[in-house]
C-alpha cells in the first residue's frame, strides 16, 4: 500500500497519506484543510470537527468484506432531509480506492464511473424506471465536513441533489447533481453483518 507523509502548512504536524491520488487532506491537529496538487500542498481553509457518531467503520481501522481487506483513510458526512449519511474513502489491498456509504446500517460499496450524457435531476422521479434501474430515493444533501484524506475536493456547506437507483441483486447506481458537474457512482448494497472489523 502507498505511504507518504506531508507536513501541515499551518501547524507543521506530520500527516500520513495512504492514497497516491489524494486531493484533500484534513489536519487532525489544527483542523486545516490542505489541497494536494502534484508535489505541492496548499492551505485552503479550516474544518469544523465532525460530531462523533457510532459507526462500524472507523478511520485507520481496517475491515474485511468478501475476502478483501479495506483501510478507511477518509470520511465525509452529508446532511439530508431525514438526518445524515457517512461516506468513507477506503483503500483495498491492491491500493485502489472506493467509497463506502453508510446510512443507519445501510451499507453500500461504490466506485465513481463515467457520467451518463444528457441527464438532469428532474428526469429521475421516485418509482420511475430507466434501463432496468428503479429510482428508489432522491433528495438534497449538504456536505457537513470531512476528515482524513480524500481523492477529490469537497467544500463544507457545498450542496447537491442526489438520486439513488436500484437493480435486482443489490445493485446500486447513484447520481450527484452539483451546480457545475454531475458525478456518477456504481456499486452494490452490503450486509453490515458481513463486514468484519479487524482487531
Amino acid at each position, binding site marked *: 500500500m502507498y505511504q507518504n507523509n506531508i507536513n501541515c502548512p499551518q501547524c507543521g504536524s506530520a500527516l500520513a497519506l495512504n492514497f497516491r491520488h489524494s486531493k484533500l487532506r484534513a489536519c487532525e491537529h489544527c483542523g486545516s484543510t490542505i489541497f494536494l496538487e502534484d508535489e505541492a500542498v496548499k492551505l485552503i481553509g479550516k474544518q469544523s470537527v465532525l460530531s462523533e457518531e457510532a459507526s462500524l467503520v472507523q478511520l485507520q481501522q481496517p475491515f474485511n468484506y468478501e475476502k478483501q481487506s479495506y483501510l478507511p483513510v477518509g470520511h465525509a458526512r452529508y446532511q439530508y432531509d431525514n*438526518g445524515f449519511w457517512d461516506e468513507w474513502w477506503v483503500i483495498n489491498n491492491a491500493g485502489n480506492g472506493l467509497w463506502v456509504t453508510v446510512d*443507519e*446500517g445501510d451499507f453500500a460499496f461504490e466506485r465513481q464511473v463515467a457520467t451518463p450524457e444528457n441527464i438532469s435531476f428532474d428526469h429521475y422521479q421516485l418509482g420511475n424506471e430507466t434501463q432496468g434501474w428503479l429510482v428508489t430515493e432522491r433528495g438534497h444533501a449538504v456536505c457537513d465536513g470531512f476528515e482524513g484524506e480524500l481523492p477529490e475536493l469537497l467544500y463544507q456547506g457545498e450542496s447537491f441533489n442526489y438520486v439513488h437507483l436500484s437493480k435486482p*441483486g443489490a445493485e446500486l447506481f447513484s447520481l450527484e447533481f452539483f451546480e457545475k458537474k454531475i458525478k456518477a457512482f456504481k456499486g452494490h*448494497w452490503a450486509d453490515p*453483518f458481513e463486514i468484519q472489523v479487524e482487531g
Partner: protein
Amino acid sequence: MSESKIRSINCTSCGAPLKLHAGHKIKSLTCEYCGAVMNPQDEFSVLAKFSEQQPPSHSPLKTGDQGKLKGVPFTVVGMIEWYAEGDSWIDYQVFSPTHGYAWLVYETGHWVFLRRTRNLPNKSLWTLKRRAKVKMKQQTFLFYEKFNAKITYVAGELTWIARMGDTTSLAEAIDPPYLFSEERNKYETEYYFGEYIEATEIKQQFNISKHYPVAPIHRLQRYKSKFLQPLAKVAKPFAFVFFIISFAILIFMQGSSVMVKPVVMKNTGNGQVQSSYEFSISKPNHLILLTLNTHNANALLNARVKQRATGKTIINLGKNNAKTSEYRIDKRIRSVEASFEVPKAGIYTLSFSANTQLPVKKVKLVITENHVGSRYFFWLLLFSLAAILISSFSRRSFESQRWKLVED
C-alpha cells in the same frame, strides 16, 4: 460501537411521555398509551389513532429493552403483533446505531432474527410449490408456505407506517436455521433474510426471567439431539476405520491353512462317536483357528487339543466349557469354532466326540495358523453403523415433523 441515544417527547395526542431510541429512518411512532400513530418526519403529527388496540399478553420484550444479537448491541424500539390462520406472533423492531434496523420475531416461544436483504431470489416465491427449490445469492432454500397476516397491535418506533388492521402477504422459504421471505403489502415488496436464534440465548441477552411456553418444534429449528448427534459424529470415522480393518483382516490376515479334510467318525460303542487328528504348527504364539463344519453342531460334545510330545492339554473345547474359551457353536452356520494359541512349534493332536443320538454327518475340519480374528471389529462396525442409522432416522423423523406443521 455504542448503544442508541435516547430522546424523549410527549405524545402529540395524549401527552404521555414517550422515549425514542431509534434514528432518522423511523417512519412512524405509535403511542402505547392511546394508540396514536405519529409521523416523526413531520413534527410527530398524528396520522391515525387506534385506541381500542390491546397489547399482547405474552410479550417477553418491551420497547427500550437491550441485548446483543450476533454479538451486536440492539435496542427494541417498536413492536407489531400479527395474526394469521389461528396463530399470532410478535415482530420486535430492533435498532443498532452501527448495524441499523432489523426484526426479532417471537412466535410460539421461538425466536428469529430477521434483516432486510436487497438480494433477490432467482424465482418468485409466490408461484412455487411446497419444497420447491429457490436460490438467493449462493444459498438454496425450500419453499415452505405463503399466507396473509393482519396487524392486531402496534407500539413504538417503526421503519414503516404500520396501522392496526393492515394486512401483508408473506411467502417463506427455509434452509434451517435460515429463512428467506418475501413480504408484499399495497405499497411495496420487500425481502428478508432470517436466522433462528435459540430461546436460551435471547433470554440471556435480553434478561428475560419469566418463563414462556415453547412449542415442541419450529420450522427453522435445526435438528438437535444431545446423545444421537455426537454419537453418530463419533461413529462415522470409527465405522470407516472398522470397515477398513475388518476388510483388511478378511482379505489379508486369514492365515495359512494347516489342515482341511473331511472327518471320519468312529463308533466307540458307548453311544458316542469320536475322531482324532494330528496337525503341525510352525508358528507358536500366533492365533490358530479351528473350525468343525457340520450340519448338526449341537451333537458335538467335547474337543481337546494336546501337544503330542508332552501329552499336555492345550485347550478343552465343548459345550460344557464354552463360556471359558474362545469357543462358540453357531447353529445358523452349523459350525463349531475355536481360536487359541500354542506355546511351541510341533505336532498337536485334536480329538473330539459326538453324541450318536443326534446324527452327525459330513463333518469337515479346518485348521488355520497365524490367523487374525475380525469378529470384534465386525461387531464394532455394526455398532457404529447402527448409531449412524438411528441418528439418521431420528433426523428424518424431525424433518417430517417440521414439514407436518404446514402439510397437515
